[in-house]
């Protein structure tokens, strides 16, 4: 049992560990307050992500980039209530998928509890994860993917990729959970899955006109920095909320998250300083996100002190990651693979390397956990890549996923939304 994690694992662990006043089937006001707060924080990551991404594109695409996050807030929030939650967390203890027994959240009322919190809170919190994950992918396809195609894509992707993966890792009976793969707050489910799906999508979508020839200069870096600040803030909910209780595990996850983010920021700036002589503001924004991604799978298992190397190395690895696209020539516009794919993978592995709280890892002599982590990464990455590739291929054949050349030149704000970002 102490190897398992995800919702039920963590829940059990935290109750046993702290012997607090919270027992299953009795509502804890403190836990409920914290997980509601955390859910709100994760929701705020969407506008944060929108700013983070939108600041990096050219001004003619600022709104269309933002809209790719907002449409996830619209469409996936509904999908989750209608059937997504049920697919991920419903059903019996099937290893691969949930059930259809809680469609429309039927049978749940304000009195229904999940551990020490109302089930509605658990649904809300998990729903925010379902919303943000496809929004992360958007960073790779901005400036050229049709808005209509993206909208349909995220519904299919949430249904066919996210909901099953979520079940594998966090759902009752999910096979990765049973295997003992640790993913405290979504390194596998959220970051690796979005990173490799981004790659699959752009392989079909193709490069932006002028990629590697023209300079795609970020149009407003203050927006990106504010976005990264909101992401950092929201990530406390993402990670510390994942303990589903206001307890010592949440507290450690909170502090480890903050520390890894800081270390990621510093790591990225140092390598920039070495390579280019100057640390950049975009580097700071990117580095803290890299650190946050990397600590996500292990936030509840890794101490703040160990979070320093985890974050620092993430800053350096993701810096290398974003350089790959120039070498290999695929146009991962805002580096979803480079930051989320690579950062998430590193974080999942790092959990097997340095986790010391509530689990074993390499440094405690538990090499098995490391292997389990690797299996989790490979399984999730393969599944997400293959299914995404198929979805995108089919979508492209049926409705076409790419804006026309004229639309791309004009900018997607005008061509997809009939608007311009600024009339200063």
């Amino acid at each position, binding site marked *: 049992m102490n190897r398992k994690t995800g919702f039920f694992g963590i829940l059990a662990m935290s109750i046993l560990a702290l012997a607090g006043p919270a027992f299953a089937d009795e509502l804890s006001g403190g836990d409920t307050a914290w997980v509601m707060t955390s859910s709100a924080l994760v929701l705020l990551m969407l506008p944060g992500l929108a700013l983070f991404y939108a600041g990096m594109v050219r001004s003619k695409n600022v709104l269309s980039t933002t809209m790719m996050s907002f449409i996830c807030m619209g469409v996936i929030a509904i999908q989750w209530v209608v059937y997504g939650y049920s697919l991920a967390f419903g059903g019996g203890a099937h290893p691969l998928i949930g059930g259809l027994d809680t469609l429309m959240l039927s049978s749940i009322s304000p009195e229904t509890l999940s551990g020490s919190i109302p089930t509605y809170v658990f649904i809300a919190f998990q729903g925010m994860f379902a919303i943000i994950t496809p929004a992360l992918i958007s960073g790779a396809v901005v400036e050229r993917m049709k808005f209509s195609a993206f909208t349909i894509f995220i519904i299919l992707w949430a249904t066919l990729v996210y909901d099953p993966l979520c079940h594998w890792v966090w759902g009752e009976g999910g096979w990765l959970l049973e295997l003992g793969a640790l993913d405290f707050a979504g390194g596998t489910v959220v970051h690796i899955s979005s990173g490799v799906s981004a790659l699959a999508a752009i392989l079909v979508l193709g490069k932006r006109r002028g990629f590697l020839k023209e300079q795609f200069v*970020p149009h407003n870096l203050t927006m990106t920095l504010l976005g990264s600040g909101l992401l950092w803030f929201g990530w406390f909910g993402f990670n510390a909320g994942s303990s589903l209780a206001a307890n010592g595990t949440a507290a450690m996850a909170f502090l480890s998250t903050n520390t890894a983010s800081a270390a990621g920021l510093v790591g990225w700036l140092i390598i920039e300083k070495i390579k280019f002589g100057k640390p*950049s503001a975009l580097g700071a924004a990117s580095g803290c996100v890299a650190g946050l991604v990397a600590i996500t799978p292990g936030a509840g298992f890794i101490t703040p002190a160990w979070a320093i190397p985890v974050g620092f190395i993430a800053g350096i690895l993701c810096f290398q990651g*974003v350089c790959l696209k120039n070498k290999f020539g695929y146009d991962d516009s805002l580096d979803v693979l480079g930051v989320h794919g690579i950062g998430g993978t590193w974080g999942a592995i790092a959990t097997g390397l340095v986790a010391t709280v509530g689990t074993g890892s390499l440094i405690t002599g538990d090499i098995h956990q490391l292997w389990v982590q690797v299996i989790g990464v490979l399984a999730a990455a393969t599944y997400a890549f293959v299914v995404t590739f198929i979805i995108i291929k089919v979508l492209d054949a049926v409705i076409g996923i790419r804006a026309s050349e004229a639309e791309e030149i004009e900018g997607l704000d005008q061509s997809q939304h009939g608007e311009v970002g600024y009339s200063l």
Partner: protein
Amino acid sequence: MKKIEAIIKPHQQEVTIDALKAAGIQGMTVSEVKGFGRQKGQTELYRGAEYQVDFVPKIRIDLAVDDDMVDKAVEAILGSARTGKIGDGKIFILPLEEAIRVRTGERGPEAL
């Protein structure tokens, strides 16, 4: 009358305008432009890549003057906008046939 168009470095804007005023110029119109020339743009960083922007921000000063003021104005600009480094910019002089003050309808040199 002549029209003088001067393209200068942004950081010299203030001293140049002061010098022109000191030379007796009472009005001018300024705009922000991008220059392409011998001077190369800055090196910028962008996520693991370094690249050179291909333009340089410049300031353009438009100045309508009476013929006898042309030399004074040109000297004022040369004396203030010059830093001695590549990219200091250019002065262009064009013939100006008429100038009219909108408020009064005055024409010619009095309109300036």
